[in-house]
């Protein structure tokens, strides 16, 4: 490949990544911040995610869902950082804070979410917060689609029980 063609290909790859960054960057940053700790490491993790994606541009082109693939890379980067730097995830504080006059059931749901197993919580967040499909969540987490569905159903049943039981007690 001549130098000019190589430069053009390089420029094309950078533009494609920039476009993906504009489209999914915010969701990735929120996910990293929520799942893997404080803000500064989350931005570093996001940059590392982009660099990993830049090392394998053919994977981005081949992916059925580039968004799911980016989430998978972000998760791998965050997991590695967690193991290496021992960042403690501050999950309860990252839930939307209680506001005065809000629905009292909201606090019960927050507590129920905090009590969920990490795998269920992560799956629930990817579906309800980031609006990933079952297939995209399966790609991001590296698990079968059936497992994704089963985890989400289990999580929603637990939340429903937390709401309805409290309602029954208060009634």
């Amino acid at each position: 490949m001549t130098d000019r063609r190589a430069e053009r290909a390089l420029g094309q790859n950078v533009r494609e990544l920039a476009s993906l960054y504009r489209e999914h960057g915010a969701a990735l940053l929120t996910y990293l911040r929520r799942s893997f700790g404080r803000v500064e490491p989350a931005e570093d993790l996001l940059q590392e995610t982009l660099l990993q994606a830049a090392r394998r541009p053919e994977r981005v082109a081949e992916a059925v869902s580039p968004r799911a693939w980016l989430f998978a890379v972000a998760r791998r980067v965050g997991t590695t950082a967690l193991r290496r730097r021992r960042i403690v995830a501050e999950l309860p504080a990252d839930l939307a804070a209680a506001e005065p006059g809000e629905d009292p059931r909201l606090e019960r749901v927050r507590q129920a979410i905090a009590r969920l197993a990490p795998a269920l919580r992560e799956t629930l967040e990817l579906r309800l917060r980031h609006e990933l499909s079952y297939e995209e969540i399966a790609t991001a987490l590296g698990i079968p689609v059936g497992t994704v569905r089963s985890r989400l159903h289990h999580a929603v049943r637990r939340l429903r029980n937390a709401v309805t039981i409290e309602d029954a007690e208060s009634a």
Partner: protein
Amino acid sequence: MTPEMLDRLLLDRALGVLGPEACALLSAYLERDAEAARRATEFETATMLARRALGASATTELPPFPAAAIERVQRTQRRLVLVRNVAALAACVLIGVGVGNWTARESPRPASPIQLTPAGPAATYVTGGPATESNSGFWSAQRLYEESASKKRKPSMRLEWDSPLQRPKTAYQNPAREGGAMWPGTGVPGSVRRFTLGGAT
């Protein structure tokens, strides 16, 4: 429809992954089943509250896109791929040369190499003329003559029948001797073979 199957459909609808046609069919079913409709409402309330508790993917301020770092990484990747390809090619060539050398060492060599001699007088005997350029070289008449002359030839049998009143005699001609001296012969060199009417004795 079993209760487990119905529950799975209700949960899928609450999570927002059920298609529009399936949703419409499910809604029609729920109109006739009050208990199922109540469960559907509970699931949808739980997911709605969970969405609010988790907070929608807020508009976060993104750091700038690290274009320079990405270009640097991609150039390094390209160089690594080139180096890897060149190393693989070099390894193939080395393996090929190594295998070639090994097979050459294993195969037997001739005892003495064929030596090409310049054209000489024998070439004149064969061609009837002086040695010329066409008489030298690998396929020259000179070389072929010398090779055939150096080969040992089997003695050839010759039949001598001087008179019909006498039995024929065979003899072996020794090609190595000058003039081809005859051996009186039977079936083997150095013996005479006599023919009888019934067959050879």
